[in-house]
């Protein structure tokens, strides 16, 4: 205790270090730039004959901590569209609320919610781009799966910068490194998606998630998978990875070059 009552109860510099008062700054340029806190890892998706399959595990990490192990990162929109989220979970929940309100609004029109996956992707990419332009990004990388206006299978990606691209199979995060090569081997570009069956697509996704579970330290063996066809969305949210084989692990020493 000392003679300066205004200092009582404050953290002592000699114990806690000098207080960084810049965090209290209320003037100057807006610096609401964030960084992700609780995050989800890869989302993987494949087009097949008559639809799209999309999968993501049920983990939300807090840094390296496996924080929430029952988080659903696939979101169904309307009759036949699914959004898969990786990146910040709170931003995912914010976007989820956005989608909810759009769905409600659309359902007021005479013919119900007519927004298809393509429309949804256009919209979400605009949201991402707007927020990045305001220097207040939504820290996500998403895949949107469903159908376009011509009822053809649709799969496209959008990220926190508003960058968009599409393809017959896509993966975000670690999946871009681990899953995409697997998918490219299973479904080479010469092979039209009409020759890929639903079963092929689903088992490919399970295989990808397994490899990710082996190698991505921020992944989980519990996952969700959604299959979108003309008949609607079939969503399974509590899948377990089967037939794991960790035999390979014994032979791995060091970073791979080590043999003894």
């Amino acid at each position: 205790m000392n003679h300066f009552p205004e200092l009582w109860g404050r953290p002592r510099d000699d114990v806690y270090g000098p207080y960084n008062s810049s965090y209290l700054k209320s003037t100057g340029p807006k610096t609401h730039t964030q960084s992700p806190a609780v995050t989800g890892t890869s989302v993987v998706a494949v087009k097949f004959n008559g639809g799209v399959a999309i999968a993501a595990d049920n983990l939300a990490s807090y840094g390296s901590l496996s924080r929430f192990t029952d988080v659903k990162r696939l979101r169904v929109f309307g009759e036949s569209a699914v959004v898969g989220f990786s990146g910040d979970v709170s931003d995912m929940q914010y976007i989820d609320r956005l989608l909810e309100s759009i769905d409600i609004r659309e359902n007021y029109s005479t013919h119900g919610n007519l927004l298809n996956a393509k429309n949804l992707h256009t919209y979400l990419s605009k949201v991402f781009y707007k927020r990045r332009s305001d220097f207040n990004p939504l820290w996500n990388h998403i895949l949107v799966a469903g159908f376009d206006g011509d009822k053809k299978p649709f799969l496209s990606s959008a990220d926190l910068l508003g960058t968009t691209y599409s393809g017959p199979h896509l993966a975000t995060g670690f999946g871009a490194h681990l899953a995409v090569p697997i998918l490219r081997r299973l479904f080479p570009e010469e092979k039209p998606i009409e020759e890929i069956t639903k079963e092929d697509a689903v088992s490919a996704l399970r295989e990808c998630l397994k490899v990710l579970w082996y190698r991505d330290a921020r992944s989980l063996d519990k996952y969700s998978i959604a299959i979108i066809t003309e008949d609607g969305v079939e969503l399974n949210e509590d899948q377990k990875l089967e037939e794991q084989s960790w035999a390979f692990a014994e032979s791995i020493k060091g970073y791979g070059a080590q043999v003894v």
Partner: protein
Amino acid sequence: MMSAMGHQSQNGTIGYSFGTPTTAPHKEHSFYPYTDNGGSTLGITGEDFAILAGDTRSVAGYNINSRYSPKVFKIGGEDDTGENAHIILSVVGFAADGHALKERLDAIVKMYKYQHGKPMSVRACAQRLSTILYSKRFFPYYVTAILAGLDEEGKGALYSYDPVGSYEREQCRAAGSAASLIMPFLDNQVSFKNQYIPGSGEGHDLQAKKKELLPMGTVEHLVKDAFTSAVERHIEVGDGLQMMVITKSGIEEKYFPLKQD
């Protein structure tokens, strides 16, 4: 603890935060709003046509995002078919900015037609594009744009831009990650730079090869050659070549596969 005590004595104050101005480390500003999606574009004009081309690969670092992500767009046409467009635009650099720029210009050209009852001239559109780019001078669209169409006399017109709106009309231009590989080739093959009439003289007396506008077939060949070569030497270029040819009878779009490695 010892060092903390030392800090206290150094300061000569009681050691509380209040009233002690601290030089805080700069807060992390970890968001960078741009990325480079790679790829290259190229435009060449002729007497009565203009060609814009671009590869269709989209990259993020060493990853290939997509093998088909077009960089050349029709401007002012109908939304689902692109019909009745009379201007084409290519954008390379940060793809999200490129898209935003394309959509903005497209909306402006459409509104122009709605308000004036006639299509916007390429000259006017070119000037307007410059204004759009400059309006974001301090948070630029990170793209190199090339605009093409036919001018008032029906001649091929090509305008090239820097990210903040500086522009000029040119005969040919390459842009994007392999621009430095393609442009010298174009200088030589389209503008005949360093080509001389054999035996026309010695040293400074050498006569430069006379300039002439190339026919469409030749230009198309040059475009394909430029890209196949760029694919060999630049990792961000490849997968596919998208080409748009604009003539008085409309816009023809073509696609040729490129190497995927």
